């Protein structure tokens, strides 16, 4: 494996958990719900995924446990923020704090235990091609799931009736309600989907990326996922590019540190976040594109008349 191949492979692995979490949040936000609890949902997904995989020895069980844990956490958010119409921002931040704390509690027993290796896909001949072989045909299964999910989310949002209803709820919840769609049900399902994706993204961290459990291993990725959704103007295709960009910068700065470029490592570690913020600011300048794609009811509570 060449150096370049190695770098490209790690970029994809760094981008995958972000892509999972951001895709879920994109769907929730398209329905008009701003769930700031992505970081917390990723954390419980990571610890539950690791625990399940550790106990069964099966990475698949780990992934499923991560999804279930993320959905539970999201369900909690949904009940508080949608059913009881609590402030979405405050509820989301509370969910993040709760998720980080809970994951540390559950994960206490699993600190320092090595994870189960997730086998990479291996297609005879194809996976052995130079450079592209490993990159295209030899990733771990999660990467393919993530790409399929991105395509699936795009197809769902823009090609199906259910996706149209979901977007309509995010654009104008009063009109959607007047047409007889259940704003609450649509948003609750979207939030659950967001939780499932965030949980899977968290599980990916503890199953494949590290693979082990350490406290606070999500390291702000949930917040980056939130930023990526805006950066991508709520479009799944752009989300893939954004996740790869963040992944690329975070991997390249590691290599820069290893080579020793004479910049303090703390500054290099900041780089992915700075790049994301700069990208956000630049993209925000295109108001026309933003205003058509921004869900107009994002973060606004919905209470029907009588």
């Amino acid at each position, binding site marked *: 494996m060449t150096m370049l191949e190695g770098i490209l492979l790690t970029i994809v692995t760094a981008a995958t958990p972000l892509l999972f979490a951001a895709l879920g949040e994109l769907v929730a936000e398209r329905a008009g719900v701003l769930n700031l609890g992505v970081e917390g949902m990723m954390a419980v997904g990571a610890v539950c995924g690791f625990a399940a995989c550790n106990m069964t020895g099966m990475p698949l069980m780990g992934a499923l446990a991560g999804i279930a844990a993320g959905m539970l956490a999201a369900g909690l958010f949904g009940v508080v923020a949608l059913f009881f119409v609590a402030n979405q921002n405050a509820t989301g931040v509370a969910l993040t704090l709760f998720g980080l704390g809970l994951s540390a509690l559950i994960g206490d027993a699993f600190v320092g235990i090595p994870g189960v290796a997730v086998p990479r896909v291996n297609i005879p001949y194809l996976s052995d091609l130079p450079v592209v072989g490993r990159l295209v045909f030899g990733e771990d299964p999660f990467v393919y799931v993530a790409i399929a999910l991105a395509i699936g989310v795009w197809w769902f949002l823009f090609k199906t*009736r259910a996706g*149209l*209803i979901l*977007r*309509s709820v995010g*654009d*104008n919840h*009063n*009109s*959607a309600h*007047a*047409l*007889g*769609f259940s704003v609450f049900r649509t948003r609750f399902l979207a939030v659950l989907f967001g939780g499932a994706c965030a949980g899977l993204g968290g599980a990916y961290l503890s199953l494949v990326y590290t693979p082990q459990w350490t406290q606070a291993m999500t390291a702000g990725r949930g917040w980056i996922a939130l930023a990526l959704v805006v950066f991508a103007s709520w479009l799944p295709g752009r989300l893939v590019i954004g996740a790869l960009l963040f992944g690329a910068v975070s991997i390249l700065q590691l290599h820069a540190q290893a080579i020793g470029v004479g910049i303090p490592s703390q500054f290099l570690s900041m780089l992915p976040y700075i790049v994301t913020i700069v990208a956000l600011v630049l993209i925000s300048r295109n*108001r*026309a594109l933003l*205003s*058509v*794609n921004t*869900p*107009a009811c994002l973060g606004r509570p919905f209470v029907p*008349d*009588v």
Partner: protein
Amino acid sequence: MDGTGGGRRQRPQGTALVEARGITKLFGSFKANDDINLSIRPGEIHALLGENGAGKSTLVKILYGSLQPSEGEILWKGQKVGIPSPSAARRLGIGMVFQHFSLFDALTVTENIALALPDRKSRSALAREIEKVSAEFGLPLNPNSVIVDLSVGERQRVEIVRCLLQNPELLIMDEPTSVLTPQEADDLFLTLDKLTARGCAVLYISHRLEEVKQICHHATILRHGKVVAECDPQKESAAKLASLMVGAEIHALSSEVPVPENTRTRLSIRSLSLPEPHPFAVALHDISLDVRAGEIVGIAGIAGNGQGEFFDAVSGEQLAATATAINIDGKPAGRLGVTARRRLGAAFVPEERIGHGAVPRLRLSDNVLLTRHSTGDQLMRVGVIDFEGTRTLAERVSRSFDVRKASSDPEAGSLSGGNLQKFMVGREIDRQPGVLVVSQPTWGVDAGAAAVIRQALIDLARSGSAVLVISQDLDEIFEISDRVAVMSRGYLSEALPAKSVTREAIGLMMAGLGEGRRSNGEELAHAHHS
């Protein structure tokens, strides 16, 4: 103007398509609807008349299934039915076109319509069907347009086509012409005639009596939640209908004092241009206008043609590029902020009452201070508020404008829309400003309060102030203005004397034909024919 094909309109015979019996709706202890009976026949246009708060919207929401009645029953073709939801209403054959459109701005015409239809045909098949129906009923539409790019009239067409695709037997229309130009309204009336010719009934909610007289077969009039009269609107005079709605004769406005001639210009706008602040806003193009002492100049135009941007520029919320673009009593004010312009003697009443004109959670006396803190009323002494002074002032405004309130100094948000509007206009007129700029002075205000406000504007002008009124209500413009200008896509036409200009000419200018600024009757006629 005759969109009806002329002749007397006979109410069709036959049994009722829909009948509401003894409908009562309680909100807490408030009776929004009180024992209402209503019967609509197939093929008729049935007017539902009433002032704001008379209970029209509540009744319509009950018929459309978005509210449930506390008492009473609904019969559809003689059968007792429950209408638990809007989709149930649509299944019965009831369609509704809302006053504030229920469209999704970010979606296309086809997507918007697909959302309302229960069947799941493909979008391209639906788009073809939309084109067919819109051509059939004279409602041209491009199925692929995004709603945000459409004019208000086009948005209404989307709503109507959306209803028509479901083959409704009853179409409910809530204030359909309030956002249309007179020409667009005539097109709408033709569409309604095509519909009723096929036996579809229309429940037509409006407070525009002339058009009700023109197109409706029958009218039911509500007041305070009760049916006060049923009549044939063609047989009654508009004044009679109005007094039935209000419950008292509305005294006519008087402006007997003629407009003084050759008075000095108090507000002068010179070549005002502004780029659009965001993509959905309108840029202002080379606007010039003089308003002299003693006169009211009315600016007509359909919503969203730059009136909001123009108001912001004149009031100082948005600064002009040069100081001389706006002059108040001869002093350049284009680069001054709102407070500095107030100090020059100008006063401003914005369109949006809550949040822009008044802070809902503050008391009236505090709201007084918000526009009067530095206008020489001595309400502030070295930065300390004179609460006694603000309360006295609020009380004075309330008394002279008949602001009805529950306590002596309530929060602004507890006032009804009409009372708050009277308070806001009164707050500025109380100052006797040299220049008053007011946007939508009687928006959502009942006829009684509107008369009070309009009379106060006329009186202020005749006492020597310059008054600039921006309004979408053509009746209001013609009622109070001495000169009329039209705003269209950020251009302002020349201001013409109100007595010499016809509603048709104004309507054409509203539709965009006044944009050269040099328009006069001749050019308008030319533009119309070419």
